């Protein structure tokens, strides 16, 4: 009864006030009722209930039961950490971290190797990864993997020749992959085969183009490679035209820029500008005898694929890997390389090239 606060009008607040006083021992419920006879209804009833529960408010656990339960809880707590340790071996986090490091490192090496070139530390990793993929792939997937490998060899060849190194071996491998893809396409369904052969033609055309450009700029004699690729392209075209659905294949124009090798390897400072083109169109309608004078008989065997020698004109064999010293680009060619991301030939859209134009050097762009 220390506080003689007048009761507030709000029921909840009044009840809370009385209960606080009762809990604190300053008031009793009966005392409240005696003090405020004007209290009625719910509040009076509430105080009556509180008063009748006054005795219950003193209830407490028997000391013996209280101590026994405390002992029981302490015993449980004592065995808990031991159980937890038994469930999780101490070496597990270390093993998990090591495994994670290996996986991260592996992915990192594989990613880093993707742009590596012959002679780089990671280049064998890249080649190993490709060979694994090739062994695993079947059907259209295998043809796709072969063509991917071919494209990568061409990209590497271009990247190296940008540095002034002409690696003919890479062109050979490019051609080998392309020929394998042509052979593997035989087993495919008609529509898949047509698509695969179109891709072969496009890619080989691009390879021919690259060979001609490199020969021009680096002064390397790559005419044999260009001729062999020309023959490879002709055989792919013949296969395409003899397939059961020529209508559908004729309407699809092969587009050599579909997967441009240039996008991956060219840099804005590249001094190379494509000047020669190989037309992507069907060469043979076009029999080997129609071939232009730039490919005299005896230099490679058109249509026969890879049986060419990198040396020209029957001269004594030269090493297959030609590595001329790097030299600055000629003046006037210093325009940033836009190059072959666009159509290498102005006639590329037509898909049909008049006979006799095949592999004849033509100006595709003026610098």
């Amino acid at each position: 009864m220390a506080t003689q606060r007048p009761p507030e009008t709000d029921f909840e607040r009044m009840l809370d006030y009385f209960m606080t006083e009762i809990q604190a021992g300053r008031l009793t419920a009966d005392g409240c009722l005696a003090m405020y006879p004007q209290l009625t209804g719910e509040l009076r009833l509430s105080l009556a209930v509180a008063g009748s529960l006054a005795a219950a408010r003193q209830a407490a656990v028997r000391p013996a039961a209280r101590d026994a339960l405390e002992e029981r809880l302490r015993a449980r707590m004592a065995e808990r950490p031991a159980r937890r340790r038994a469930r999780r071996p101490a070496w597990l986090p270390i093993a998990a971290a090591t495994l994670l490091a290996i996986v991260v490192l592996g992915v990192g090496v594989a990613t880093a190797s993707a742009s590596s070139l012959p002679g780089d530390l990671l280049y064998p990793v890249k080649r190993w990864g490709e060979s694994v993929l090739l062994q695993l792939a079947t059907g259209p997937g295998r043809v796709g993997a072969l063509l991917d490998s071919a494209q990568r060899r061409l990209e590497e060849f271009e990247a190296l020749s940008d540095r002034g190194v002409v690696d003919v071996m890479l062109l050979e491998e490019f051609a080998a992959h392309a020929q394998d893809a042509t052979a593997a396409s035989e087993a495919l369904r008609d529509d898949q085969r047509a698509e695969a052969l179109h891709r072969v033609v496009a890619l080989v055309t691009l390879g021919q183009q690259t060979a001609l450009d490199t020969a021009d700029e680096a002064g390397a004699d790559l005419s044999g490679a260009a001729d062999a690729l020309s023959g490879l392209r002709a055989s792919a075209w013949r296969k395409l035209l003899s397939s059961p659905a020529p209508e559908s294949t004729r309407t699809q124009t092969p587009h050599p820029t579909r997967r441009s090798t240039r996008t991956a390897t060219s840099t804005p400072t590249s001094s190379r500008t494509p000047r020669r083109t190989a037309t992507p169109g069907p060469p043979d309608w076009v029999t080997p005898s129609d071939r232009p004078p730039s490919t005299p008989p005896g230099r490679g065997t058109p249509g026969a694929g890879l049986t060419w020698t990198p040396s020209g004109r029957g001269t004594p064999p030269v090493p297959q890997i030609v590595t001329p010293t790097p030299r600055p680009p000629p003046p006037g060619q210093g325009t940033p390389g836009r190059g072959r991301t666009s159509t290498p030939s102005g006639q590329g859209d037509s898909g049909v090239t008049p006979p006799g134009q095949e592999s004849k050097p033509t100006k595709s762009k003026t610098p």
Partner: protein
Amino acid sequence: MANFVHDRDEGDLVRRAQQGDADAFTELYRRHVDQIYRFVLLRVGDEAAAEDLTSEVFVRALESLHAYEDRGAPFAAWLYRIANARVVDHWRRSRPIDVSLDSGEIDLPFEPAARDVFALKILSESLRSLTAEQQEVIILKFVEGFSTAEISQITGRSEGAVKALQRRALASLARHMDS
């Protein structure tokens, strides 16, 4: 006895107990064992059963302590929820379906003042006529002295729902007391 005067160090005690500090959990037990016991006792009306249930409440609290999240409600609110679930489960297991109300008298382990005996007897009968939710609110309000806001935190019901439960419980008790 004003339990919800929020102890600033209670949060620290809980965190330490969660990290396996046995002393911290023992301290929490000592602070709250009596109020949990009262809450259980008034609802089951039997001292031995109330002790067993109180024991169950703290064992369960210890086992699920790692899952406890401090969302601003006092630690006691969490203990009351566990206790409420234990009481309801106890009824499901042991309460005879036919309860004769006039035999009901809370077997209190203390000697109440003579003046209180009559009221308590009436109240014990009346309390048992209430629903579980109403009992919970009445005990928290009139035995433990929690405010409506605090009971709202403990029971997980809105303050409006708590007030409505309290009003219906009081009306039901009034009918019993008058009859």
